[in-house]
């Protein structure tokens, strides 16, 4: 049973990057990866608590335009595997997942860069095959690309599956309580990085009103996120319907608007 679980986790690691860069169905976002890992490991609650923690840390950390970012999906996956193997206490599991997951997720950046470098050779080889008229061979060469990217996440996961829990047990016997507590605290603070990063991409100054409304309703009235999302949708719907009416009549004004918006995004 443990062997099958380990193999499934490694297979998920391999698939996750291919899907994120291709079909975008299971993605490598922590929430979905955590849900699947929870099914594999047979402990949905622990898996989702870890996945939720990483998901909130990962908000806004988008790999746009081929940039390399910490792989929070990989962090979630190895974190969940090692934590569930090591402990049954949820708070403890969260601290372990952070201790193992964060460094592995960071390592993901380096491996991603390596994968992109290696793929230059794949591209060259495929184009060479094309010009020699070997069309079937070209098709086969292309498959090296997904193979390389799959390995960038499957290899570190395999190492964690093989040695992770033993190593972590060893470390946890030595590590003091303030340290694991500190990691849990870091887990509750780190979402701030994703949020702050998101705000850089968004027209914050233009729509500061919305940011404040969301904050007040959540902090003072404790409305759940889904309710606030619906409220946000209501504002968005109003804006959309109002402006779609205007667009055909005042095409010039819409253009000027678009330029102004571009400025906001740069800030």
């Amino acid at each position, binding site marked *: 049973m443990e062997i099958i679980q380990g193999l499934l986790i490694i297979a998920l690691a391999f698939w996750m990057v291919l899907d994120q860069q291709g079909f975008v169905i299971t993605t490598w976002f922590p929430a979905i990866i955590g849900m699947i890992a929870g099914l594999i490991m047979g402990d949905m609650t622990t898996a989702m*608590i870890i996945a939720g923690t990483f998901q909130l840390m990962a908000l806004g950390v988008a790999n746009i*335009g081929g940039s390399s970012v910490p792989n929070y999906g990989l962090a979630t996956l190895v974190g969940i595997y090692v934590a569930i193997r090591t402990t049954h206490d949820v708070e403890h599991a969260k601290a372990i997942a952070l201790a193992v997951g964060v460094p592995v997720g960071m390592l993901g950046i380096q491996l991603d860069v390596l994968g992109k470098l290696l793929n230059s050779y794949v591209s060259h080889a495929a184009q060479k095959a094309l010009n020699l*008229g070997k069309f079937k061979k070209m098709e086969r060469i292309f498959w090296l690309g997904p193979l390389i990217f799959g390995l960038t996440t499957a290899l570190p996961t395999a190492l964690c599956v093989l040695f992770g829990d033993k190593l972590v047990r060893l470390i946890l016997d030595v590590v003091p309580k303030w340290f694991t507590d*500190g990691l849990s605290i*870091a887990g509750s603070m780190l979402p701030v990085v994703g949020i702050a990063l998101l705000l850089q991409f968004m027209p914050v100054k233009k729509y500061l009103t919305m940011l404040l409304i969301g904050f007040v309703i*959540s902090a003072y009235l404790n409305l759940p996120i889904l309710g606030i999302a619906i409220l946000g949708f209501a504002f968005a719907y109003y804006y959309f319907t109002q402006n779609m009416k205007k667009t055909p009549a005042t095409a010039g004004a819409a253009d000027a608007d678009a330029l102004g918006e571009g400025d906001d995004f740069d800030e």
Partner: protein
Amino acid sequence: MNNTEKTNDAVTKKDIRKAAIRYMFMACNTFNYENQQGPAVVYGLSKILRKIYKKDEDYKASLNNHFNYFNTTTWMANLLLGASVAMEEKDGIKSKDAVQAFKTGMMGPLAGIGDTLVWVLYPTIMGSIAGYMGLQGNPTGAIIWLLLNVFFFFFRVKLFELGHTSGLKLITALGDKLNVFTEAASIMGLTVIGALIPSVVKMNIPIEFKTGKVALPIQTDILDKIMPALLPAVLTFVVYKLIASKKFSVTQIIFMVIGLALVCSFFGILGV
């Protein structure tokens, strides 16, 4: 809707769907720093272009053209590639330069809109809902997200077909509407982000002031009285400014936060 298809009986709707799925699978899986998504475009279109170009030389010339640098939001690329296929179908290898100019011209604007919608707003809204439910051990949000992704998968196949049938005109016309849509999505996104700050960033100071017999817990009796979620709001502002200053990389800032948490945990300034 079927005008283009009737003029050329070689390319069927099935071919179009197959090309869409081939491209969507490969998308960034052959990504490299030279021609980025170029090889994936070649892989995606290689079967359908073989149907259009019977002569090996034309086929090679067309694929070599598609090997050129290409990079945009992969969801949006479906529209562009659908339209490119339509151009090559109509004019053959003569359209090579036009296809190249069209692809390079449109990939920038489409990436601007597409990255904001697909990689920033969509994962933020779904991620905050799914992540927040996840913290309570609940996978419902994640399942909804997965189902939406399945829906968008078929939607993207449709986009390829749409690009093929309606072609260039549509893409330029869509540009204006998408701007309004992006703005509206930003409004929703920022409302959600505002709510995220107090609900997901948690900081708690367990220290108490003691004067004689009276204990005054800092967190509940002072900070929360000033404003709930005061510390998370301050931290958000500080990190926002740190990132905006561009003096530190995101990775460095992540390690700074972890370091701060460890130090505060050691001195008992912050508690779990």
